[in-house]
C-alpha cells in the first residue's frame, strides 16, 4: 500500500503557503470567478497569483491542482475555456473538472494536460468512471460522497486510475453536482454559479434570547441561548415533516476520516482531500498538520484518531456515507 496523498485547500495565496508549510502533498484552488465551486468574495487566485503559487508549491515539492469544476454557461463559455488555457499555459500539475464539454475541450486543445474528474461529476460507479477514462484520459477521480468503504474498494479493483476521497470538512448529504436546492431558494447554485446558500442571501435575526438564521426569506434554523449557531447551509437546517422538527437532511457536522485511514488505504484510495477553501489560515494549518501526522502514522500501520471537533460544524464529526449506518 502506498502512502495517502494529502490534498489541501488553498482559498488564497496566503492559505496556500500555510498548507504547503504544514505538509500538504498537493494544494487545490480556483480562479477568481464563476469557473470554480468556491466562487466567494475575497477568495481565489488571479492568473499571476497562480503562477507565483506554482513556484512556491513546487519549490517545496507540493503539487498544484486547479479546480475548474463548475458548468460552463450556454452562450458564455469563454471564462471556462480561458481558465483551461491558462492552466495549460502555466503547467499546473492537474486540472479538476466536471463539465463534459469542457473535458472534451481540454482533451482536444491541451492533450498534455493531466485531468482529474471532479466530485461535481458525481461518477459513482465503475461504468461511469471508465467512460471518463476512455473518452478523456482522466487520471484520477474524486469520488462522490455516496459510497461506503467496501463500495470504494470494489470500484478500485475494477478501474486503472487513482481515486481521491473527501477526508475532512463540510459535507454535502446530496450527490455533488446534482443538487439545485440552493438555486431553488436563492437563484444561485453550485453548478452554475459556484456557490451554495450564498452569504449574500443570509440574514441573522435575534428574537429575544433566540437567534434565527434565514436564507432568502426561509427560516433555516433557530438556536436557543445555549446552542451554537451555525451557518444556514440549507440542507443542514432544522425543518418540519410529519409534524416533527429536526435535522431532516443532515446535522451541522463535519466529515472526519482520521479514524478510518487504514480502511481507506486498504480499499485502494490514493489521495485524501480536505474541504475548506473558504476557511481561515489557522483552520487550514491545524487540519493539515493533524492530517500530516495521521497519514504518516497510517503509513506505519498505526491508527490515530484526531477529533478536531473545535474545527467542525456543530462541534461534531461523522464518517458520512463511508459507513452504511449514515444512509
Amino acid at each position, binding site marked *: 500500500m502506498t502512502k495517502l496523498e494529502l490534498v489541501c485547500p488553498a482559498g488564497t495565496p496566503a492559505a496556500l503557503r500555510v498548507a504547503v508549510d504544514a505538509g500538504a502533498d498537493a494544494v487545490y484552488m480556483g480562479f477568481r470567478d464563476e469557473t470554480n465551486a468556491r466562487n466567494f468574495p475575497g477568495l481565489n487566485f488571479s492568473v499571476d497569483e497562480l503562477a507565483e503559487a506554482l513556484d512556491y508549491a513546487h519549490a517545496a515539492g507540493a503539487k498544484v491542482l486547479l479546480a475548474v469544476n463548475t458548468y460552463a454557461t450556454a452562450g458564455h463559455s469563454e471564462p471556462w475555456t480561458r481558465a483551461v488555457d491558462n492552466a495549460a499555459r502555466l503547467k499546473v500539475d492537474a486540472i479538476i473538472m466536471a463539465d463534459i464539454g469542457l473535458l*472534451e475541450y481540454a482533451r482536444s486543445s491541451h492533450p498534455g494536460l493531466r485531468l482529474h474528474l471532479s466530485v461535481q461529476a458525481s461518477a459513482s460507479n465503475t*461504468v461511469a468512471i471508465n467512460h471518463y477514462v476512455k473518452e478523456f484520459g482522466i487520471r484520477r477521480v474524486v469520488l462522490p460522497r455516496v459510497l461506503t468503504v467496501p463500495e470504494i474498494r470494489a470500484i478500485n479493483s475494477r478501474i486503472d486510475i487513482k481515486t481521491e476521497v473527501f477526508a475532512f470538512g463540510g459535507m454535502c448529504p446530496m450527490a455533488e453536482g446534482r443538487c439545485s436546492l440552493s438555486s431553488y431558494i436563492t437563484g444561485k447554485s453550485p453548478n452554475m454559479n459556484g456557490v451554495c446558500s450564498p452569504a449574500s442571501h443570509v440574514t441573522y435575526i435575534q428574537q429575544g434570547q433566540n437567534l434565527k438564521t434565514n436564507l432568502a426569506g426561509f427560516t433555516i434554523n433557530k438556536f436557543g441561548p445555549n446552542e451554537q449557531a451555525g451557518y444556514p447551509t440549507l440542507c443542514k437546517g432544522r425543518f418540519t415533516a410529519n409534524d416533527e422538527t429536526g435535522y431532516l437532511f443532515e446535522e451541522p457536522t463535519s466529515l472526519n476520516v482520521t479514524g478510518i485511514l487504514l480502511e481507506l488505504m486498504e480499499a485502494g484510495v490514493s489521495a485524501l482531500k480536505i474541504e475548506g477553501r473558504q476557511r481561515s489560515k489557522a483552520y487550514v494549518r491545524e487540519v493539515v498538520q493533524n492530517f500530516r501526522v495521521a497519514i504518516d502514522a497510517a503509513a506505519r500501520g498505526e491508527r490515530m484518531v484526531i477529533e478536531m471537533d473545535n474545527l467542525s460544524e456543530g462541534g461534531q464529526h461523522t464518517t458520512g456515507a463511508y459507513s452504511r449506518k449514515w444512509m
Partner: protein
Amino acid sequence: MNKSKLSLGPLLFNWSNDKIRDFYFSVADEAPVDHVYLGEVVCAKRIAGKDYLPEVITRLEKAGKKIILSGMILVLDGRDMKTVQDMASMAGDYLVEANDMSAASLLRGQDHAIGPFINIYNEASLKYYEDGGASRISLAPELPASSLRALAKVATSELEVQIFGRMPLAISARCYHARAHKLHKDGCQYVCERDPDGLTVDTMDGQPFLAINGLQTLSYSYANLMAELPELSKMGINHFRLSPHDVDMVKVSRIYRDRLDGKINLEEANDILQAEMFALEFSNGYYHNMAGLKQVGT
C-alpha cells in the same frame, strides 16, 4: 404551437403496482400525450414486486403512445447497475433515456435519449451527447431561458423541458423518507409509498419549503410554464414534459394540449389548472433566471 408534443415524464413516486397500472391505463385511454416515459428512476428497492410494465407498455403502444424507458438517477455498482444494464439492453426495442453517465456510456453509439439528470449546461456538452447518438434530450429545470435559447439554437436533437410538476432538485445515497420516520434505508419499510406526491417539508416557521421522495428532494412548488409555451416553441423547443402527480393527469394534460392547440387562452388555461390543483403553489422562476420557487406574471 400545435406541432408541439406533450410527454409524461417517469413517475417519481412509489405508488402501488395497481395504482401505477391503473394510472397508465387511463393515460393510454384518455390523455393527449405523445410520449410516455416508464421506469423507476429514484430507488431500485422500489422495483421489487412490481410487474405492471409489460401490460402497461402493451396498452400504451396500442393507444399510439411512444414509449421511452427511463434509467435511474443515482447508480451504484450492484443492484442499481443491473437495472441500468437491463434497460440499456432493450435499446434496440425502445428508446432508452440515460439519467446517469453509466447509462449514457452503455447507450453511446446507439439511438437514445438523455434525461434531465445528466448535466447539460452548454453547447459543447449538448454536442457531446448528440455526437454519441442522443436524438432526444430533456434539459434540467434549473436552466434559464437564455441557456435554453442558446442550446436550442445549435441542437440537432429534439429538446424537451419540464413544464408541469414538482421539480427534482437533489438525489442522495441517504433516504430522507426513512430518516423522517427514524428508520434506516436498509429497513425503510417502504414508507415513501405513504406520500404519493412526496412528503412536504416546512420551515420551523411553517412555511412550505421542499418535498422529499425517498432518496430524492423535490421542490414544494409545481413548475408551470404555461405562459412560457409560445416563447419555448419559438426557440425551437417542441417537447414538453409533464411530471406525473397524484392528480387528474388526464385533465392536466388536456389543459396543456388545449393551450398548445390554441383552443383556450393563457388565462383560461391557468384558471382551469388552478382550479384542478387547488391550494398548490406554482412556479416558473428558473426560466426567468431567478430563484426556482418564484412565480412571475400570470
